[in-house]
């Protein structure tokens, strides 16, 4: 009888242990990002001239994005339609990127994005990545009315980094 009672207590203790694990969100370290590249996330906005209220804007034509690499442009986003958000790569070694927005293959705006670069060790299993901190932003004004950095940190989080206010 005594041994049965002891066995029962043992089983309860083991069950408790597994219950804690089950509800304690055990993980196996497999929460690595699927894409080891961090992007500068840019969203288009417009401001209602009457109410002054801002809202997410959509460019209804075709919008392409090119990066200037060693004096030549390299298309990274090609003829995106109904664009309201752009994910733009950031250079690992440079501290100033030149980003060209091409509207309907006819007009352009240029963004000059200044940033720092931090090579980052994530974990032994997830590897390494490059994170950035935005430090400055200039732009031309064909379609862009103004631009503002809303989140300086560029990492794997899908946060918006830059608001681009386009002219009405």
């Amino acid at each position, binding site marked *: 009888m005594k041994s049965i009672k002891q066995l029962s207590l043992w089983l309860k203790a083991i069950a408790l242990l597994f219950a804690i694990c089950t509800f304690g969100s055990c993980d196996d370290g497999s929460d690595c990002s699927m894409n080891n590249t961090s992007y500068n996330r840019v969203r288009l906005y417009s401001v209602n001239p009457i109410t002054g209220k801002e809202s997410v804007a959509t460019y209804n034509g075709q919008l392409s994005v090119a990066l200037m690499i060693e004096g030549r442009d390299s298309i990274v986003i090609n003829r995106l339609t109904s664009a309201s958000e752009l994910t733009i790569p950031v*250079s690992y070694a440079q501290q100033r990127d030149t980003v060209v927005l091409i509207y309907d293959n006819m007009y352009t705006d240029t963004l000059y994005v200044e940033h720092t670069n931090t090579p980052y060790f994530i974990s032994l299993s997830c590897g390494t990545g490059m994170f950035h901190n935005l430090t400055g932003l200039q732009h031309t004004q064909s379609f862009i009315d103004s631009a503002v950095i809303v989140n300086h940190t560029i990492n794997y989080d899908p946060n918006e980094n830059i608001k681009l206010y386009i002219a009405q």
Partner: protein
Amino acid sequence: MAATAQESSKGDTKKENIFAFKGFNVSADIFGCAYRLIGNSISGEASIDANLGHWLFPVVEVGYGSTNVTNSDNGIHYTAAAPYYRVGVNYNFLHKWGAKPADSYPYLAARFAWTNVKYNVDAPPLIDPIWGSEVPLTLDGVRGTALWAEVGVGVNVKIWKNFRMGWSVRYKLRIKDSKANNSNISYIPGYGNNTGSTFGGTYNLIYEIPINRK
């Protein structure tokens, strides 16, 4: 007023302090050494606990853990080493008040643990997928702190005279780990790989130092 329990052996009603000090147990964990056989980590650990009324055992554990590993998939070489510390209690949940102390007993274990680890990372250069540039990543002597809690079950068994042995299995839950400017801790001595939770175990050789056997 001290907490008391009825002493029921031989029918008397003598009251005893349920926290009466009965002695010490000193032990060494040899399970950590076995990790070397199945992985790239190794640890050694010693502990001392106080026997209070044969049911409650406040315990302090001090260990040293290290790892030296290369991930063959991504080529990252990681080394870390540090002492770690745990404080907590073991609770003999089958203790009978007034009965003779058992030669062997099971217990529930609870611990709070921490370490201040120093680690090194030697990674292949990061290659920019657009611009094509390479950026090296080598970190030397980065320091980080980790805190975690452990709960588990174990047994403590008398072998011969004052010599005992025991084992325990523990569920470990990370409470906090510090992040450096450009890295995370990947291996936490005394805890294992830096995941939100994990399991661990101990296998202890124990020497009992009795002060009061009643």
